[in-house]
């Protein structure tokens, strides 16, 4: 029983990371209609910034804040300089463009920090918490709590601030938003910045477990994309829930289904994705009217 609970909690923690990256992908997709394959690479580069800050002797929390600030600027810069050119154009070209970004950004990280995985400090102590005979790791709980908190903050931003309203308006109908005087291009930049910042939080939280390297989030990105599709590309809530679902199911399947084991866990979200896409092409939480998928 304790083992089971531990598996579920660990699954929720990795699922939170998938969900955070998936949410970043959904935010970008809603505002610019693009799928950002470089979302993981941007997060890794930002996590390396946190790493550099920590190497310089500063506390990790400061590193996290610097990384998020860096990511916001980086995301906005990338949108303005590279991505804008491909918005509203051919969808395949847009996919290729973000793949180019993925290669370029991880190439930058590799050129500066090399491809060898390095240990990364954790925000949380490596301890377990006992609750009525059930033991769960503090790291897993901490990761989940931080990401849930960030998501709640984002939700508050979108629901209750003028900036959030403007971003929702641009995501909904950019041409009408412009006719109402909204600075559409600046809002798109901010949207990419927020998405990248979210990715940076996910990167810093998962780095202690994965060890930091330019390819650290390659698999996480694939999980996040699967979660974004499962949840429905236009549904932030769906992305998060699907992230947890994938995290928990792959953990349980890896532990209890012998054929799968640790190495084939990655097949689980794909199997789930293919089944669900066959039954409900718009995803679990997506709107049927959106036929982008």
């Amino acid at each position: 029983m304790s083992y089971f609970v531990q598996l579920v909690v660990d699954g929720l923690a990795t699922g939170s990371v998938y969900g955070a990256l998936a949410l970043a992908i959904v935010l970008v997709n809603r505002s610019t209609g693009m799928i950002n394959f470089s979302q993981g690479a941007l997060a890794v580069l930002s996590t390396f910034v946190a790493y550099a800050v920590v190497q310089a002797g500063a506390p990790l929390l400061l590193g996290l804040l610097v990384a998020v600030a860096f990511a916001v600027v980086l995301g906005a810069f990338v949108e303005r300089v590279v991505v804008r050119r491909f918005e509203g154009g051919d969808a395949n070209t847009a996919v290729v463009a973000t793949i180019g970004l993925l290669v370029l950004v991880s190439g930058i990280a590799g050129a500066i920090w090399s491809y060898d995985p390095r240990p990364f400090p954790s925000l949380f102590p490596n301890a377990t918490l006992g609750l009525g005979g059930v033991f769960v790791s503090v790291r897993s709980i901490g990761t989940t709590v931080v990401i849930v908190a960030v998501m709640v903050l984002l939700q508050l931003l979108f629901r209750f601030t003028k900036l959030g309203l403007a971003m929702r308006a641009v995501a909904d109908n950019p041409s009408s938003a412009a006719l109402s005087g909204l600075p559409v291009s600046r809002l798109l930049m901010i949207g990419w910045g927020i998405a990248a910042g979210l990715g940076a939080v996910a990167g810093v939280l998962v780095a202690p477990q994965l060890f930091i390297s330019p390819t650290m989030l390659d698999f996480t990105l694939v999980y996040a994309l699967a979660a974004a599709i499962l949840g429905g590309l236009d549904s932030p809530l769906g992305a998060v829930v699907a992230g947890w679902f994938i995290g928990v199911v792959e953990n349980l399947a890896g532990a209890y289904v012998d054929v799968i084991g640790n190495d084939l866990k990655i097949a689980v979200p794909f199997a789930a994705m293919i089944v669900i896409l066959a039954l409900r092409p718009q995803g679990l939480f997506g709107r049927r009217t959106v036929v982008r998928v």
Partner: protein
Amino acid sequence: MSLLELQDVTASYGQGRVLHGISLSLAEHGATGILGANGAGKTTTLRAISGTVRTTGRILFDGRDISGLGPDRTARLGIAHVPEGRGTMAQLTVRDNLLVGAYQRRDRRQIATDVDYCLDLFPQLQARTGSPAAALSGGEQQMLAVARAFMAKPRLMLLDEASLGLAPSTARTVYDAIRRLRSETGLSMLVVEQNAVLAFSLVDDVTVLETGRVTVEGTASELMGMDSVRRAYLGG
């Protein structure tokens, strides 16, 4: 001095030129209707003013040349474009749509007053303030589009085919409200309308476009008197 003045304006989509040198002017508090067949360039004229199509020539708004400015810039200068097809934010609630319209304003108290004014102008929206725009009927969406444009407190409203796709009685309701809006606020308007009867009920002056050129200009009553105009646009 006129509020809006177009001098020899051309506009093109890609290689195709749609406007071939339009000139017209609109006085402050005035309202001009633009009539013409499909493809005459009515919508493009509005888009040239709000900056959503490539143009040449001069477009003076309050004495300032605004040609080349994008839609967000012209909107901030006081031009509110109600586009053809309404252009509401489908997933946003009615109230959020109105607040988006007021995005550039800082006077929070006055915004609340203006929201109330819009709901008074379009009572049909009162019960729907929490519903997403996509859930509204076509007529209600058109009302919302006009209300959202008004929320920017513009000096000039560009109104494109506000009766399109509406039942005749609904279209009349929409135009009654717009007429009231005009008389109560003195808002200047440039009105593109297929339904000439509705257009004549709202505007002082009329400009007729044919294939991207101005062919007839005059006051509404002058044009009502012209046989050619009556035959072409008023069905007799």
